[in-house]
């Protein structure tokens, strides 16, 4: 198991019901973790509409998770 911290923003924050959490997961990659959480919390955004940041930087979905990682799933942006 890998223990990571998650921060949620915007629609994902509302669907998760909280801004951040620490959790232990068997998911090997960021993509697998998103799938796991989407199923558990009913996230409506397909992974194709979401990006991921790991430790403060945009990352590839197939990045392997390591204990201590901070992840943010990034819904479609809408600044301006």
């Amino acid at each position, binding site marked *: 198991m890998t223990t990571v911290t998650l921060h949620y923003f915007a*629609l994902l*924050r509302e669907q998760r019901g909280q801004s951040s959490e620490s959790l232990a997961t068997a998911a090997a990659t960021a993509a697998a973790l998103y799938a796991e959480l989407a199923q558990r919390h009913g996230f*409506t955004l*397909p992974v194709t509409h979401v990006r991921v940041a790991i430790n403060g930087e945009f990352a590839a979905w197939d990045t392997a998770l390591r204990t201590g990682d901070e992840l943010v799933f990034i819904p479609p*942006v809408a*600044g*301006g």
Partner: protein
Amino acid sequence: MTFRISSEPLDPNALAAQLLDLRAGAYVEFQGRVRNHNEGQPVHALEYEAYTALAEKEGARIVAEVAARLPILGAACIHRVGRLELGELAVWVGVTSAHRAAAFEACRAIIDETKARVPIWKKEHYASGASGWINCATAGPAAATRITPPAPR
């Protein structure tokens, strides 16, 4: 060259003053304000939320990329977060250059890239009491989740 997220109201006059430069013949400014409608619906207010650390990092990259590509003298972009009322300033971009072509092109590129790449999200509150996160509608049944009906009172 600046990109910043601000939870305080933006003062365009103060921001513009910081870019004054005697070498600059041209200054182009963009202001994005909360308008009273979107896709036909009357809008009541907006809420902006940012992943501030990454937003400022990505925003600084945008400004640097544009400055590397175009002969500009100065550029700044400030994006507001929090709840904004109608008419309030949500984003401000200012660019100076010797000649106007580069200032127009850079200003446009900075706001375009900011809207496309910077992790900032916008929730619209409609006059009806409904609200929705912009760009978060998805195809199929999930589309319905874009608009949240007003909470019962």
